[in-house]
């Protein structure tokens, strides 16, 4: 917080929108080690079904076929019985805010333009899971503990998908 004045840094969003001679959009993805979103394709992860389902608007995870443990995040092996056979199950999209705050300063690379943004822990309705995520739809000053939120999927800007929670504006 006491760092020297931040030097202007090229943001991934700028890389995607600037018309210049840097080649087609697929070459303009930020270097993987400065990019938060995972490589979601089957060539890189055994959990690509999570992202495939997300594209269909479904939030899902894995359940251990042997001992029934509902996992978060989805996994390829059960942390309890160490079985490696898992089933994919849909999660409830609705939940309520257990706690929240907002990032008013000090955002990571590529998220500076989102400031201020809210984050929170969400108790899913009907599933014993508490997920962390962005809370959109309302400024942080209008959020409250216990508030109902709904999970939603979104395109991060280059065809990859991620999830967040939306508070109703009503």
């Amino acid at each position, binding site marked *: *917080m*006491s*760092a*020297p004045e*931040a*030097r202007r*840094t090229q943001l991934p969003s700028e890389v995607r929108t600037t018309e210049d001679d840097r080649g087609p959009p697929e070459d303009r993805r930020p270097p993987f080690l*400065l990019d*938060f*979103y*995972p490589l979601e394709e089957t060539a890189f992860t055994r959990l690509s079904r999570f992202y495939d389902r997300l594209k269909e608007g479904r939030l899902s995870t894995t359940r251990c076929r042997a001992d029934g443990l509902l996992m*978060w*995040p989805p996994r390829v092996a059960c942390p309890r019985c160490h079985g490696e056979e898992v089933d994919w199950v849909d999660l409830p999209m609705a939940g309520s805010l*257990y*706690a*929240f*705050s*907002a*990032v*008013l*300063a*000090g*955002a*990571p*690379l*590529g*998220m*500076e333009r*989102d400031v201020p*943004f809210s*984050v*929170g*822990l969400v108790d899913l309705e009907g599933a014993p*899971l*508490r*997920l*962390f*995520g*962005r809370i959109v739809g309302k400024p*942080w000053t209008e959020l409250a*503990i216990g508030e109902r939120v709904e999970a939603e999927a979104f395109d991060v800007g280059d065809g990859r998908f*991620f999830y*967040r929670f939306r508070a109703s504006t009503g």
Partner: protein
Amino acid sequence: MSELRDVAVVGGATVKFGVRAATWAELAQEAGAALFRAMPNLRAEDVDSLFVGAAEPERFAFQSHVAPLAAEQMGLKPWRILQRTELACASGQSAIRSAYAAIASGLSDLSVVVGVEKMNLPSMAEANTSMACVMDRAWDGAHGATAPPFFAMVAQRHMKEFGTSPDALVAVSEKNHRFANTNPHAQFHDKSFSAEKLRKLPMVAPPLRLGDCSSMTDGAASVVLCAAGRAREFTDRAAVVRGTGQYSEFHNLAHAGSLTDWTGMRLAAREAFRYADITPKQLDLAELHDCFSISEIVEYEALGLCPSGQGGRFVLDGRSDRGGEVVVNPRGGLLGCGHPLGATGVAQALEVFEQFTRKVPAARQVPDAEWALVHNLSGSANVHSIMIYQAAS
């Protein structure tokens, strides 16, 4: 631990913490120079092992394989154990625990521990990207989770569940910044933060303001450990390790459980107190991991210094200040000294040694200190690491 050798911290040194015009390697060189200046009886060729606490040199300094790099900067050629430990914010204490284990077991006779971190970069956003990687990056970091919003949620829940007031957060920050004014190596040595000023600082992650958050800091610190039997070669009085405990509770934020009752810290403390065979009431001073003001409040409770929910009251009543029952963070804490991740835990242990040997300025000297505890958490309070020291002549 009866079959193990007693181990003592017998010296050490720190460099100036702050936004330093110096590289990672230069900080390590400064640490070496300061150490040999502080310990005239220490001979480089006698140091058989070097443990390097460093959290993210790959990110912040684009440098891997830092253990031999640090050895070269410090003029050391270890021949028993050379290793780097990474445990995010607890990397420094992790290095000390490794040195302790090596000496207690007889594998090492004389170990140097150095913690080094270079965090200030031209781009603050790049530095914050590195901090977000401490989280489960693909599932938590990708939402924009860095430490401030997590500890802000801890504060929010503590306020809701126990009625803790913003004044309690201010009291922690005011106390630790005031102690930092007595410490010339602290990042905020020259800055005064009154309660009134702290209340007006900008909000970073509500309800946490700038003064509730430790800084991005460059720094390095070292300590020397040896078998307690040969401590007199270096010092008349030493800090003998009497207990240690650690507990890893979770990593993904989905498994944090109660944000206000840090079970992992209770378990680590129970283990450390059992080894030391003392109770929390016997502590004269404690270096607690105040990465945020709220952390110190939750830590009073998890250590058993006060009942659950009473941490705010504990600091407001002055019970962790000079003249209180246990002086917490006389060095200035992470809030006042800054928090160079790998160096912090080492600098805390150095404070214990310097308190025991009466080398600190009178304004922060804890009179007749015999028992001290050092605590570090790492990440989003995922892991808790604790060491207990006793002064011995």
